[in-house]
């Protein structure tokens, strides 16, 4: 009898769901990168953590948002560019006399980093920019002199092309150019003085998820974030993390320890679309007055159904002239 019971038991054991496998702990990836003040941009890809770097072509003044659902025009944040809305829409009536009416302001980046630079003073927060006709004055220094240009957005064509008029301040008839949204890149870039689009400023969007670089901004408004001084004592160079917002959404976790962040924690977090965050991973040491890693900043990035937790593991170098950072990237 016991033989039959034994056979029956073996038979019943055969026909059952297999239990789940056990896997050893997967180590997180370490990524060493220097982020020197030579203002190179460091593009990081998360699936197979790696860095691409490119010395940016800075000879452009305006960049145009390429996302299909978004319209936006931004100034070059790596160089000091001033911008001012004249609140006039007669392009030909505006000349250098207008400078007597007001001082062009610096572009300001809002904390949520979603606002268009030009829209800051005007009415650029719109779905269809056809009503937007104000002329802007854009000013920058090209090493020899201050340049003043007029800029007026005219229209958008077939929902994917910017059409705008621009030219030196005293020219009545401006140039009209068009920039068509290129789905392969996050932004399109334009040089006003050379009257042409600039290529190869950034890598195609499928090659990177976020980038480390620097951005000029007001010191007084960002006093808690470490920065490097510039020739203009009001402006500092701030370390910046910019996101490939067409592919990723982010959450900055300052409460949870890096070791405790896992998929089940990240899954319920409210991720949001961000273009950049300043000062992530960095902090001032108030006693030594040196830059140091910020242990509270755990950046969580959601890319499709994948989640990545990122923190600064080590920081070498005392200032931004010679700084290298080791990022720990944990795929959740």
């Amino acid at each position, binding site marked *: 009898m016991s033989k039959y019971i034994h056979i029956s038991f073996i038979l019943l054991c055969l026909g059952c769901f297999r239990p789940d496998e056990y896997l050893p702990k997967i180590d997180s990836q370490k990524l060493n990168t220097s982020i020197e003040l030579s203002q190179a941009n460091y593009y990081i890809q998360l699936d197979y953590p790696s860095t691409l770097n490119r010395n940016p072509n800075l000879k452009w003044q305006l960049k145009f948002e390429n996302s299909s659902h978004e319209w936006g025009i931004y100034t070059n944040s790596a160089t000091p560019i001033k911008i001012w809305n004249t609140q006039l829409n007669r392009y030909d009536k505006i000349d250098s006399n207008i400078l007597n009416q007001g001082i062009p302001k610096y572009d300001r980046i809002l904390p949520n980093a979603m606002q268009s630079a030009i829209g800051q003073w005007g009415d650029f927060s719109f779905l269809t920019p056809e009503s937007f006709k104000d002329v802007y004055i854009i000013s920058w220094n090209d090493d020899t002199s201050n340049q003043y240009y007029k800029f007026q957005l005219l229209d958008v064509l077939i929902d994917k092309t910017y059409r705008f008029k621009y030219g030196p301040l005293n020219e009545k008839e401006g140039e009209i150019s068009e920039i068509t949204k290129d789905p392969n890149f996050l932004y399109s870039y334009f040089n006003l003085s050379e009257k042409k689009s600039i290529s190869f400023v950034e890598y195609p969007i499928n090659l990177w998820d976020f980038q480390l670089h620097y951005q000029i901004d007001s010191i007084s408004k960002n006093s808690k974030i470490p920065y490097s001084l510039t020739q203009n004592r009001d402006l500092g160079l701030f370390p910046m993390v910019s996101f490939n917002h067409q592919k990723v959404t982010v959450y900055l976790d300052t409460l949870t320890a890096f070791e405790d962040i896992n998929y089940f924690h990240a899954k319920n977090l409210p991720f949001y679309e961000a273009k950049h965050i300043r000062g992530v991973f960095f902090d001032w040491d108030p006693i030594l007055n040196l830059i140091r890693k910020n242990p509270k900043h755990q950046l969580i990035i959601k890319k499709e159904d*994948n989640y990545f937790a990122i923190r600064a593991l080590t920081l070498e170098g005392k200032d931004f002239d010679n700084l290298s950072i080791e990022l720990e990237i944990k795929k959740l």
Partner: protein
Amino acid sequence: MYCLRIFLLLFVFTFTYLSQEVQAQNNEHTFLLSFEDIQTANLQNLEEAMAIIPFFNRYTEQGNTVITYGTIGIQTIAIYKDGFPVALDQNINYNLKTIPLWDIERIEVRLTPMNTSSKNSSITIHMFSHKIPKKPIWSNVNVTNTSLNDLHSSVSVGLSNVKHSGQIGLSRSFTRELYDQTGLRSTAIGAFERYDINLKYTYKILPGITLHVQSDHSSMKTQNKGDIILGTSRVSDSHQDFKKNNLWGYLQLKASKNHTIQLDGMIHRFNNDVKDIDKDLHTGQQTTSENFDRIPSIGYDQGLIKLSISSQSKPLQYTFGIELSHTRDNKYPFINAVSTSYNDYDAFGLISYQYKKTVLLSGGINLWHNNLSGSYLLPKFQIKIAPKKVLELNFTSHSSVSYAPFTQLFYPSFLNNGSNNNILLKPIKKQVNHAHISFHQGNIWVNSGMLLINQNNIPQVGNNKTLISKGKTSNFTTYASMQFTLNNITIRPSAMMHAVNHLRDSGNLTFFYPELNLNAFIKIPHTKMAFGITSKFLGKMTKSFIVDNEIYLSEQKRIRYVSLRLQRSFMDNKFNISLGLNNVFQSSFLSNDIFQLNDIDKTRIGNQNIICGYPKSFTIKLSYSSF
């Protein structure tokens, strides 16, 4: 006109003269899968059987099982168990794995049967369970184990006396998963475990009054495993939990020698809960969520009540009655404030008149009303020349309707491949013309015929991505099947050629594919041993389909199913041991080519992997019956 009448008369008389009356046979089916075939092919559920049953093609594509006969999906082919529909309208993506075969004696395919149903009735599949043995007490035990580590077991116990007879059957069936070709952990077909309790009870209240009640209850769990997500110790699995309760029966009153009044009823409720389970295989932590991007959870309530009166008197036989049915989504009773349910009201009549022994004329009509799509008049007509003779000639014209898939009627676009639902979709209308000759002499039964099916009102994506009833298909088949039976030998070969046109409304391309079947069971004299074979060969099959006004072709490679079985009996045939070999030649995976059709040529644009079955396996089955 006179010439035609004279010709017809001569034809009928010649036929009558040549024909010899033979013993009456109830050969309503065109194709049959017998109990022995089911055992030989080790078929555990109806989905597995659909790969073997002649006429049909079954494969799994991206986790979904597709069962078709040419251009016709299984959703428009009624499936009955002991005369009652197993899933009523069949438009609810019913999982045929949940229909067990351990209590089934035979499966029949009937082409254009003269039935009283208006829905999905042009081609029907009938499963018949074992009759309750007329024994005071009996039992039956079966255990099947395969080299793939599948295990299927069932126990049935029954009691019977003059007035009451009843049985209860319990079953557990476990089928191992089939892993993806490329993945290490992901499954192409998930493992599933099913428990069944089937009950059957008959009460002969009075000599002319019978109450029969049957119920099938099943619970099935399916585990589809996902790949390990690269760079993590995490996986995402999908679990399905299916539960079914189906209760049906009839009260039959013999009103006179030839007249019967019958009241049928059925209540069917089922739910299939689908959950995605995210697991960390290092920590063991896991969470569940419902993923609408994949298969959503579903649940339906169905009810049927039917009253009929029939007469078996000669030469005129008739059946009249009414049928009411109701289908309700119990998972999402309202979607966008629309009630997800519908009702059918059907009045039917079927009359047969036999002129001497020469001609049998049958005609029927259904007046069918659906509260969503309106009323339809569905006629049927059949003429049989020399019925039940050696040579019988039969022509049938048959109209029926099938509902559009329930999701296409009610569900939002993400469950309809991005198309918007349309509650006013018309039912798919099927017009079938069937002509066949059958020859029955001694031990040989030969059946050959032609079947033409035209379907209209097939849902297709129209303007604004809204589904509309505009698609048309056609299907033409010539077939020949034979059954040869001697005391120890049963052989049933069949051959057919199908012509399919999936895009009769646009591309109008017809493709042909052949099919061969051979089922046999041979008892070896004086050895208590028997040998069985089931086999099916499907030739290369081309299907046309349309996406964004572009026509594509999918070429399915040939499929071969062969199963062998050797059986030895002991203890006066009460105890049997069977050794089987299943799916001898066929590999599990097929890579079908996809072409885009140009004006002058076709361009290969890729391929599509499908699964047509489990790999080759060995089977051992032990069975014991106390009778």
